[in-house]
């Protein structure tokens, strides 16, 4: 399972704070995983389309070509507004 977490405006729009994704023993890139999430939750696609959401894998910033594996935690991070 890959645990996917949503925050802030994404959490509000989607209406949940995350989903678990079963990789079914496949090797997936982050980009492929996002595609799967978008198909299951179309509202995520609308927000990702704006191009402002960053993605982390196990709390480190990641790129769409990075691989995800079982046990990873992926987070979709809207633009930060701390401080």
């Amino acid at each position, binding site marked *: 399972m890959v645990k996917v*977490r949503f*925050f*802030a405006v994404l959490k509000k729009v989607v209406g949940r704070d995350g989903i678990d994704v079963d990789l079914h023993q496949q090797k997936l890139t982050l980009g492929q995983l996002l595609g799967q999430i978008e198909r299951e939750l179309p509202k995520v696609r609308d927000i990702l389309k704006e191009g402002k959401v960053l993605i982390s894998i196990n*709390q480190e910033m990641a790129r769409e070509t990075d691989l995800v594996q079982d046990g990873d935690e992926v987070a979709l991070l809207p*633009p930060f507004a*701390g*401080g």
Partner: protein
Amino acid sequence: MEEVKGRKSSSLLERVRIQEEDFSVEEETRKIKESSKRVGGVVSFLGTARDFSKGRDINKIDFEYYPGMAEKKLSEIREQALRDYDIIDLSIIHRVGPIQIGENIVLIVVGAEHRKDAFRACSWCIDELKRITPIWKKETTPQGEVWVEEHP
């Protein structure tokens, strides 16, 4: 945790914290002053909640954060500042949860022998915090709730 020139890890000394409760600027300043007798100057940045932003009246704000990653990023910021600037110690504290107008949000305190790098490190830290830390702000206005997008 590695000790470099007497610097202990941020978690050991609670130099980096994310918390709901308010902090004491005086108390945090005292801790940095007491970190070394070499401290000749302390520079602080205190971020507070204001009632007007981007043309909207704000009634209250709420901060959300990514537990684990946010603290990690603040620690990384602290470690980099200690490397890049001639400073002795620094603390970063960010509140989360509901915050009323006028209340404290974030505090950065920097102690150094001399003031020049204390000012520079403090300024860099708040800029970097805003750039890389997974913390989000929701403003409650008469028109409803808005998740703020900071424009660079």
